[in-house]
């Protein structure tokens, strides 16, 4: 399988934050969920991929090409959906389109019109009158109408209601019916990814925690809940972190089968969600 994005030893230092030797790949035709708490380095990574900021060291290859040397070619085939609004608010959709269209060789007006129709966006109203959901839809329409093979979305669902998020999921499923297209989806709302993502890359404080297939994560991580008498120096070793209260403990393991063997019927053992994994990994023992 060829990789549409390859990141190797990527490092970028700021005064109070370092993105430290980050590495992960996105195979062609797959959806990569990029998760981590606020300030973990997700947006920094995306800005580095988009060549909006300068890396200190490391490699980023997009479509097999170095992203600095082939900046222009690469961007022709990337669709970018950003969390914040980058439109000229006083313009309407068609005026905005006229500004962006000349930048893309493969711009397709028919596809754009179709998306505007599907997304039920008003053509004549000024963009500043749009809701957040409508702006995201406009971003998507603009990102999808020039034959992009990599769709990068930075927190597209933050601040949006569950109904819109479900609708967005449908849109994304339609996009990936084309097996040439890959999606990099950064979010801290992990439930959106639990369904569609093929792979999950998890970063925390600028460091990679893991990059794996989602199935591997869902099948192996588990939440163990039980009485505190079961915790001793040996059993504690089995957990990534443990949350203790007056009434018992809850802990995250990355080997649910082993945990079932150790604790048998003495504990409640459930599958861990991506949210559980993120919270337990980031917070540590509480």
């Amino acid at each position, binding site marked *: 399988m060829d990789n549409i994005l390859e990141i190797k030893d990527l490092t970028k230092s700021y005064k109070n934050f370092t993105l430290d030797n980050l590495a992960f790949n996105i195979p062609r*035709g*797959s*959806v990569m969920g990029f998760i981590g708490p606020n300030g973990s380095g997700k947006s920094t990574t995306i800005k580095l991929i988009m060549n909006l900021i300068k890396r200190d060291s490391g490699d980023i290859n997009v479509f097999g090409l170095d992203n600095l040397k082939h900046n222009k070619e690469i961007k022709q085939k990337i669709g970018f959906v950003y969390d914040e609004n980058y439109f000229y608010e006083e313009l309407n959709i068609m005026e905005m389109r006229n500004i962006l269209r000349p930048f893309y060789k493969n711009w397709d007006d028919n596809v754009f019109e179709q998306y505007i129709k599907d997304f039920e966006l008003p053509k004549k109203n000024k963009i500043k009158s749009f809701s957040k959901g409508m702006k995201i839809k406009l971003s998507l329409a603009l990102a999808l109408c020039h034959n992009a093979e990599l769709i990068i979305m930075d927190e597209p669902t933050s601040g949006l209601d569950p109904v819109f998020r479900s609708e967005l*999921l449908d849109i994304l*499923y*339609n996009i*990936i*019916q084309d*097996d040439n297209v890959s999606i990099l989806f950064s979010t801290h709302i992990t439930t959106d990814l639990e*369904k*569609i*993502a*093929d*792979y999950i890359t998890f970063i925390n404080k600028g460091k990679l925690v893991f990059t794996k*297939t*989602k*199935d591997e994560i*869902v*099948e192996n991580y588990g939440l163990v809940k039980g009485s505190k008498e079961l915790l001793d120096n040996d059993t504690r070793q089995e957990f990534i972190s443990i949350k203790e209260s007056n009434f018992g403990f809850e802990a995250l393991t990355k080997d649910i089968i082993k945990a079932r063997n150790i604790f048998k019927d003495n504990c409640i053992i459930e*599958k861990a969600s991506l949210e559980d994994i993120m919270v337990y990994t980031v917070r540590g023992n509480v």
Partner: protein
Amino acid sequence: MNIIISNSSQDPIYEQIVIQIKTSIMKDEVSQGDALPSIRGLAKELRISVITTKRAYEELERDGFIETVPGKGSYVSGQNKDLIREKRLTAIEDKLTEVTTESKLLNLSLEELQSMLALLYTETN
């Protein structure tokens, strides 16, 4: 054909798909040569990842239940020996149940029935 995915089940999602498609094939809800949804289409319908449906189809293919023609799609396979054997075994079991019920009505002991079967088995050979 119905496929129902449970998120609270201990079985991985790909396995749930495999079992349900196999059951549908066994029950003749889908028959030989029938087209299955595409890997990406099924992922969309079930709202799961493409990698999961792909894994399910690979498993079904390995077990001979489906065949995938590159560029065309996946179909219910025709010549699965295990599957056919399985089906015929079920048919034999049904017939034997019938025989057992009938024998019990006639107060025939298991030994008598077994010797009858042994005789018939060697004769037809």
